[in-house]
């Protein structure tokens, strides 16, 4: 089950979805929005995605993890839109008969998601600037008042 949603992530639902009488282990990963990044304070974040491709890539990740670790359950939810500090932007839940595979699959899923799934976050710094986060790319901050542009 993969989902992209603007709603808060319901971890109870996720844990129920991956539960199974064949599972001995469940690993849930939550990515939550941090208040400080390299000493600079974040006020809030906005996430956007390329919906069709993000959905397809998430489904591919789920299928690859299923095949590689013989998961008994897998659920990935990414939230987009506006998030406040402390909220979860992403949740990955997997279940497996034995725990080592659950940790490996969970970590692989979030690592790979962060490398390939077309989702982007914009930091709204507490000082008023906003800035797309594009690893490896030096993006000039923009003031909200000036809107988009360079």
């Amino acid at each position, binding site marked *: 089950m993969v989902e992209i949603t603007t709603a808060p992530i319901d971890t109870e639902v996720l844990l129920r979805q991956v539960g199974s009488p064949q599972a001995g282990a469940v690993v849930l990963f939550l990515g939550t929005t941090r208040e400080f990044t390299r000493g600079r304070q974040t006020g809030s974040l906005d996430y956007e995605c*390329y919906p069709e491709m993000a959905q397809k890539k998430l489904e591919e990740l789920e299928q690859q993890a299923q095949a590689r670790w013989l998961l008994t359950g897998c659920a990935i939810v*990414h939230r987009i839109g506006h998030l406040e500090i402390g909220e979860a*932007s992403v949740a990955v839940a997997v279940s497996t008969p034995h725990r080592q595979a659950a940790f490996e699959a969970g970590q692989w899923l979030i690592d790979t*998601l*962060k490398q390939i799934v077309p989702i*982007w976050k914009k930091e709204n710094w507490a000082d008023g600037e906003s800035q797309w986060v594009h*690893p*490896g790319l030096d993006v000039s901050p923009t003031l909200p008042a000036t809107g988009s*542009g360079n």
Partner: protein
Amino acid sequence: MKVDVRLFAVARDLAGSDFISLELPAGSTVAQLRARLSAEIPALAGVLPHILIAVGSDYVRDDAIIPAGSEVACIPPVSGG
């Protein structure tokens, strides 16, 4: 052939639009698409080397040929999760 290229995040902000329509010769490659994007939207030129191109929701290399009617997108370095 007409190709609509979807633009996201910093690419959209730099272009000032969430897509651009290009007229390309049939059989054009991704490299040729990149050259046209650079020419049409000079503000994109600086970041384009860091942008991946997706065709039909898959990442493609610069030597790939763009099939007519396919959905094309500029994918700046992702930062989800």
